């Protein structure tokens, strides 16, 4: 057997740089696609608008739903952002199956790209797609009078949380796609998962109002930590309920674990 001459050991630093570069190539691919066909970004704006303008406005009149003196429209805006990100990310797997059917996944896998870079690149792609949602929701939140925090470091924090949340749920979706492998089965599971994830979280109602069993479930749901972080970062004078440190720790650790699992399963989708 001849030695791996072409893939000579290059040291940890060079390997890390190569890993990051490959990850960004996958993200670049997504940006190129979006630039050629931005219609999806616009059609995606409808749903959050309905939630924020209709649901949020009506429910702000319900007494008792306000948590800790926060206006309900303020309360729900970060929840709707998290929800829009979740909806984009959770169906990301369908795109993976589509790429498999086209033969694109196969070509990625045949290239000398680390599987984890392919999966992380896909996750960041979902993050890029989700950033447009953040912009849309900020634009909608201004006329509704949400007390937004425009501090640059807070905005940067929101950006990071959105990308992290999208990465987490899109990788979860990729894992499901790698397991079920067909579009039909995936659609069923995707629809089955979305609503429970959404309702068993603090996105549209405070955890304190939930029955005990639902409170327990919410605390196991990464979406809760995403919403909690978004609420603390997006709104003026709203502190995190769970602690920003815990929020970031949960989001980062879960994402890393999912990417590692996804990297193991991703080659399966091509067979």
């Amino acid at each position, binding site marked *: 057997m001849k030695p*791996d001459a072409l893939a000579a050991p290059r040291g940890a630093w060079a390997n890390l740089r190569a890993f990051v570069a490959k990850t960004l*190539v996958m993200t670049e691919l997504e940006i190129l696609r979006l630039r050629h066909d931005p219609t999806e970004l616009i059609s995606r704006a409808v749903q959050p608008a309905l939630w924020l303008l209709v649901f949020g406005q009506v429910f702000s009149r319900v007494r008792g739903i306000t948590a800790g003196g926060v206006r309900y429209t303020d309360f729900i805006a970060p929840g709707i952002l998290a929800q829009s990100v979740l909806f984009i990310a959770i169906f990301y797997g369908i795109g993976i199956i589509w790429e498999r059917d086209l033969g*694109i996944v*196969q*070509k*990625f*896998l*045949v*290239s000398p790209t680390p599987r984890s870079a392919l999966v992380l690149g896909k996750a960041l792609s979902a993050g890029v797609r989700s950033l447009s949602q953040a912009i849309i929701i900020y634009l909608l939140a201004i006329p509704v009078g949400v007390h937004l925090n425009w501090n640059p470091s807070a905005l940067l924090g929101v950006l990071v949380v959105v990308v992290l949340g999208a990465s987490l749920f899109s990788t979860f979706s990729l894992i499901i796609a790698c397991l079920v492998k067909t579009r039909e089965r995936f659609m069923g599971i995707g629809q089955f998962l979305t609503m429970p994830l959404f309702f068993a979280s603090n996105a549209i109602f405070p955890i304190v109002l939930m029955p005990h069993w639902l409170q327990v479930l919410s605390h196991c749901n990464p979406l809760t930590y995403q919403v909690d972080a978004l609420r603390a970062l997006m709104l003026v004078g709203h502190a995190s309920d769970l602690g920003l440190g815990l929020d970031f720790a949960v989001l980062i650790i879960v994402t890393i674990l999912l990417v590692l699992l996804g990297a193991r399963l991703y080659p399966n989708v*091509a067979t």
Partner: protein
Amino acid sequence: MAIVETFALSRWFGGVRAVDGLSITVDACEVFGLLGPNGAGKSTTVKMLTTLLRPSAGRATIDGYDLVRQASSVRRVIGYVPQLVSADGSLTGAENLRIFAKLYDIPHTEQRARIDEALEFMGLTNAAHAVVGTYSGGMIRRLEIAQSMLHRPRVLFLDEPTVGLDPSARKAVWEHLRSLREEFDTTIVMTTHQMEEADGVCSRVAILHQGQVAVIGTPAELKASLGAEGATLDDVFIKYAGTSLESGGYREARRTRRTARRLG
């Protein structure tokens, strides 16, 4: 000199032996054809040789690298054009190439020249900045070949390269492949259904039947072995693979038709 060698390479799915003890040798600069009816194990063989599928047993080397233990080295020396339409239709031809130039670690300073050269070689310079969705089937195939050659692979794997193409597009694809091979000394391993095409382009062919090599040799040898005057490769195929062209099933049929539709 052998560039692809397999030693009792096998893959089974459940109890089905898709590839069963395949031992073949492909020499450098050959155009080697893997023929056989649907379900004979052609695609499974190519998937194993391109590292997409792990062998269940046996081993193989490509350019001296072990297929399983040195998979990432193998990936650097091979190119692959799947049967499916694998170019991204929403990007331009040049963008498709750029993404893969980066994935294959082609130095930044060389990328542009390589991409331009690949486009020119495949006769796509004028269409470089058009969205691939507007390409004809033959152009898409040529783009995919251009992409698979960017990193100058030693071995190029083509899975049914001309399925769904009309005769003139098919001819153009083969002319380009031939000049590419002469220019860069690339070995080509391809699967095909088209006996006439295999006869015309392959230096050697192996006819697979139920996961095993039924017969192997140059097209001329195989035809002569039948002993009949004017025998074609079709006759050889029928003799060794039976007439079981109907096998393969729903998934295979659906995939082939989808490819044909997208190219047509």
